């Protein structure tokens, strides 16, 4: 579907099935995140494989979004490195970083659409900056991307004229503008009703399967985690490090007690309390 518009040479390679998981698309080594002397998380080590839907999960305020901001270079790590493929992103020169980030699409928590531009202009902005398409072609591509997220016909609306869920989808259309092969989602279902949230999950699965993109999602929504997640990392606020990684469905059954509690909404506890009381 999206193959109709592929302006960048970095065409995503579709992963047919499990065996594409051999090569990590993104790797985090010994990452320590800190604000001044306050350590948010330390000793993070994980790899994200091509075609994964990777969930960054953990309790409120444990540093999930901060980790995402590290992965896209908005915050510098206090220690450790982030690799995109075999390129060291943390040590890369600004030009190299910009080139790497061009293969990355980000859906921010609030959508982060440029409020002074229409939806088509929002989606078209990266196309205008980084491709040699003519304005008419840019408009075509923008319309297509908006159609992909179910916003056909909303090209000339301003972000303030559409609902929160639509803003999020428009943000996704913009994130997909340059056909990235990694897509980041920061709390995609925050502020969405259950149906919209479910639709967004389906859209994420669809994008992974059709574009072969690698997807990283920051969330604590259990239904989403189990519907879409193929791999994950669990950040623990008490010990200030990751305490589990792997398929969330497996972690729910065989993980550490703390992770199991999180993934079952603490229902094990509730049963225990009920039995005692």
């Amino acid at each position: 579907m999206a193959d109709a518009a592929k302006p960048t040479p970095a065409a995503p390679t579709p992963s047919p099935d499990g065996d594409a998981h051999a090569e990590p698309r993104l790797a985090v080594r010994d990452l320590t995140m800190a604000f001044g002397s306050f350590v948010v998380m330390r000793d993070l080590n994980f790899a994200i494989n091509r075609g994964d839907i990777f969930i960054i999960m953990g309790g409120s305020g444990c540093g999930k979004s901060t980790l995402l901001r590290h992965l896209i270079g908005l915050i510098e790590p206090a220690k450790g490195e982030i690799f995109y493929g075999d390129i060291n992103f943390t040590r890369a020169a600004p030009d190299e970083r910009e080139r790497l980030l061009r293969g990355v699409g980000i859906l921010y928590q609030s959508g982060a659409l440029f409020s002074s531009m229409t939806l088509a202009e929002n989606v078209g902005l990266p196309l205008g900056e980084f491709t040699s398409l003519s304005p008419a072609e840019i408009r075509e591509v923008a319309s297509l991307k908006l159609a992909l997220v179910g916003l056909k016909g909303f090209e000339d609306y301003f972000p303030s004229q559409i609902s929160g869920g639509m803003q999020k989808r428009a943000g996704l259309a913009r994130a997909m503008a340059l056909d990235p092969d990694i897509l980041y989602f920061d709390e995609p279902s925050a502020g969405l009703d259950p149906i919209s949230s479910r639709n967004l999950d389906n859209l994420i699965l669809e994008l992974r399967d059709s574009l072969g993109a690698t997807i990283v999602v920051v969330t604590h929504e259990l239904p989403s985690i189990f519907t879409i997640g193929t791999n994950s990392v669990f950040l623990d606020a008490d010990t200030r490090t990751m305490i589990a990684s792997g398929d969330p469905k497996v972690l729910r059954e065989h993980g550490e007690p703390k992770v199991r509690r999180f993934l079952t909404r603490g229902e094990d506890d509730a049963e225990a309390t009920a039995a005692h009381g």
Partner: protein
Amino acid sequence: MAAAEMAVSRPTPDRLVVRVSGPWRMATAVPDARQVEQALGQAPTPKRLSFDAAQLEAWDSSLLVFLNQVAELAAARHVDVDRSGLPKGVERLLALASAVPEKTDAKAKIEHPSMLTRIGTATVKFAGGAGDFLAFLGLLVGAFGRLFIGRARFRGSDLILFIQQAGAEALPIVTLISFLVGVIMAFVGAVQLQKFGAAIYIADLVGIAVVREMGAMMTGIVMAGRTGAAFAAQLGTMKVTQEIDALTTMGIDPIEFLVLPRALALCLMMPLLCLYSDAVGIIGGGTIAHGMLDLSWPVYFNELFQAVSLTDLVGGIFKASVYGVLIALAGCLRGMEAGSSAAAVGDAATSAVVLGIVLIVSACGLFAVTFYVLGI
């Protein structure tokens, strides 16, 4: 209406009974725990404390606060508390309040640093602020440099919008303020000059003051309050909604894309607004000269044109351009460094106006000295 009542009794030396009765409502006065504290303090210390709430009519948080205090007093003296005499709801709420132990290190420490510490902290902060300002100025100069070699990336439609906002839309308020400033100066001068019979010099006074100083300065202050604050609020909001993050990760420099068109618009519009403000101020002075001192318009203008030189006019307009850069810098800097909350946007706007006006007045003083030394 019956009042909330409380009585302490001691049926046996080991047992203390606290009896609460009547309606316990926050809206009316309720007894405090002092009486219980006294009873607990009497030797020998009782072993158990229980409650009798048979006569209790109604209760709200006032009762909970009282009982919580009693429970803490009892705990401090190692007295067992038996809550079974209380209504079920009260019992459960008290259990809930004591379910999670108090986090002792959570309370904010209120520190009162010494005078020297405060002066030192303020100095370091000021130096840091000055450093940030210079760094931002450097980034903006870099962006202007790329503009001149034609490599700056921003949208022309944005520039035109800002030119409209900082130009045409500012005309009414600039007209009002400039006219009034001209009127005020002429009025103050007229009263004095009449005493000497030197009324004609009102034209010199208004002309030189408005063209050299007041036109540029009043326009600057109006624009700092109007446009500087707007820039800070716009950029601050973009920071809150992560639009600036989105630009950065897209590989588009926010300084070039957001700050440059705003600064450029102000740089282009301030000289024009200043010229306009000069004209309106002179007309304002003229109405007083005409109305109060009976000077005819041709006489007023004739005297004025002899007094004001082209150098004065160019100097004033030059100052206005500099003020324009300062306002844009203050507004955009405060917007870009705003925190990520709604309150931070308001703070950024306020701070942008204050910084803008401080910079304008300081620059004005600097210009006065420089122009004097250079003999302009």
